[in-house]
């Protein structure tokens, strides 16, 4: 035996690693029924799943009256946004699809299969029987816009890099202009008409995109050597973290008008957005600070020794590493923020949850809580899971923990 091994080493023969192959039955036996107590546990689990899932499925497919969702679908999606102006939201969506397609072609050229799969989802929406013809057409345009972006990015990946960045930065202001309107091109739609998923998404997107840079600044401020900046950052973070979000929202909605002169009126939605942003920034700052603390001192020293100044060191060396380290916590925070936007319903805004309670107040649909809440829970879950999935892809792409 010894001799044979030595011989293998000296001849330099490369051995393949041992492989394990299972048939379906073999896999079942190894993983579910290997011992008598595994078998027992497997059967018990199957039984519990059966008694939970079966009535749920029976209810969903035979007893539930989804009419409440079908009839109020537009309310759930956009609230009281005027029907004749909905094309503006569609334009915003098509632009988003185009941008996403372009970004996909440039940044994820190898993930074609997932991209193709994602394109099926809008087609699925387009196939829904109970939506308007206008919506049918628009879901198809949505896919075409994504394909157009993807095609353009695949055709000229190098040249499209800069336009993509510009588009990403410009998307946000364009979105607000489209939805709010610009005189005299687009009729102004007041924010009290914004609602449903539209409002939820706007609150979440504004919350994430504004509180993220704000949180980074606060984290850097807390580590700053300037005493005033440091003190302000610490006070801000610690005070906001000591208060529930609902309180912040109530303060913004009810108490702010008491302090401001009566002629100054700040829009309700803006106030809620500000509340969410200010609240989330404090948490974001602590997450980023965790990432900053994990950076070894040698990284700062190497950067300084090369002559980089403080700003360059932070921007090129420290932050990229710190943020990469905290992607999972940041996305966790984004998901929490997305779901926390539902608290604006308490201060009277008609977001997805707020719309749900108005729908339930309609005489025709009294007692349909289960259908309505299950529906909006599904929407929240889909978006939260998408964020979580995207973050895992991002971690792999950036090689967290591998280098």
């Amino acid at each position, binding site marked *: 035996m010894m001799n044979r091994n030595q011989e293998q080493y000296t001849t330099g023969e490369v051995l393949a690693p041992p492989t394990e192959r299972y048939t379906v039955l073999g896999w079942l036996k190894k993983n579910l029924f290997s011992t008598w107590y595994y078998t027992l546990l497997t059967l018990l689990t199957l039984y519990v799943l059966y008694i939970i899932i079966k009535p749920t499925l029976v209810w969903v497919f035979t007893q539930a009256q989804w009419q409440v969702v079908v009839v109020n679908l537009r309310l759930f999606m956009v609230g009281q946004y005027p029907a004749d102006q909905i094309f503006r939201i569609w334009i915003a969506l098509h632009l988003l699809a185009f941008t996403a397609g372009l970004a996909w072609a440039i940044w994820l050229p190898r993930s074609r299969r997932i991209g193709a799969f994602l394109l099926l989802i809008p087609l699925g929406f387009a196939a829904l029987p109970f939506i308007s013809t206008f919506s049918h057409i628009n879901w198809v345009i949505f896919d075409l816009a994504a394909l157009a972006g993807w095609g353009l990015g695949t055709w000229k990946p190098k040249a499209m890099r800069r336009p993509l960045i510009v588009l990403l930065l410009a998307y946000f202001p364009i979105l607000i202009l489209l939805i709010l309107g610009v005189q005299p091109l687009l009729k102004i739609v007041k924010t009290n008409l914004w609602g449903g998923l539209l409002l939820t998404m706007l609150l979440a997107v504004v919350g994430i995109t504004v509180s993220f840079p704000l949180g980074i600044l606060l984290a850097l401020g807390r580590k700053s050597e300037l005493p005033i900046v440091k003190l302000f950052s610490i006070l801000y973070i610690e005070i906001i973290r000591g208060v529930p979000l609902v309180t912040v929202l109530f303060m913004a909605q009810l108490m702010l008008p008491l302090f401001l002169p009566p002629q100054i009126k700040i829009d309700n939605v803006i106030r809620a957005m500000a509340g969410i942003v200010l609240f989330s920034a404090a948490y974001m700052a602590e997450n980023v600070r965790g990432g900053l603390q994990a950076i070894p001192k*040698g*990284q700062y020293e*190497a950067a300084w*020794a090369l002559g*980089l100044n403080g700003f*360059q060191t932070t921007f*090129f060396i420290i932050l*990229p590493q710190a943020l990469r380290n905290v992607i999972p916590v940041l996305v966790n925070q984004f998901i929490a923020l997305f779901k926390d936007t539902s608290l604006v319903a308490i201060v009277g805004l008609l977001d997805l949850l707020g719309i749900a309670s108005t729908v339930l107040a309609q005489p025709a649909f009294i007692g349909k809580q289960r259908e309505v809440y299950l529906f909006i829970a599904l929407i929240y879950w889909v978006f939260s899971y998408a964020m979580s999935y995207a973050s895992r892809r991002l971690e792999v792409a950036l090689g967290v923990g591998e*280098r």
Partner: protein
Amino acid sequence: MSTSVVEVKTTPEQILEMPEEHRAEAIERGEIPIVLAHEVHKWYGNFHVLRGINMEVYKGEVIVIFGPSGSGKSTFIRTINRLEEYQKGKIIVDGTELSRDIRNIEKIRMETGMVFQQFNLFPHLTVLQNITLAPIQVRKWPKAKAEEVAMQLLKRVGIPDQANKFPGQLSGGQQQRVAIARALAMQPKIMLFDEPTSALDPEMIKEVLDVMVELAESGMTMLVVTHEMGFARAVADRMYFFDQGQIVESGSPEQIFTNPQEDRTKLFLSQILH
């Protein structure tokens, strides 16, 4: 305890009273040192880590600093590009006095390259990006020029084929050679080495030392903290023995190895040269 016996001819005033525009030429002609440390003291809290260091280094000289751990040799070399502050004394680098003025510090850091024991490469950047970052951002070179220089340097240190890898994919010796190339990319006048081979496996030490010997022979001014006595014997112009925050003895490698004067030097050398 005997005080430092090392003779330093230049005083800080001699350099500082010279008009600034004349200093570079005087350094070039070897009339004034490119690095001058005058009575440098440093404390960590109550611990007196540097106790009156005097040293002058002329352009093109290779200086080896050695001594037991905790003797202040690393601390001293790190005061030269102000990674450590000092509380008393004067350090003048390339005609500029190190002061609290951040502009002076940044100016000196542009002219000094440093190589660390732990390499300290930027793990999120490729080898090429590690090398070109400072030239592009600090020296404001165009990207193409920086990359061209970087590729030449990678050839010089013997790893041109690793340009697009990340530091984590390289061996320790390769990483340290990238670190040397990164420091050289700023075209510094002085190179500081802080125990560059101490974190390396034995078989990788030689590949790093070969690069350093080549650099020394090309005329670079170098201050090297190291215990590689073979390297010192081959290229050092002068050696300084540090102990307990002081320079105990200095001289040519010849003097230090064959005829050390101080007992502490003899003892230390006998411990590391088995």
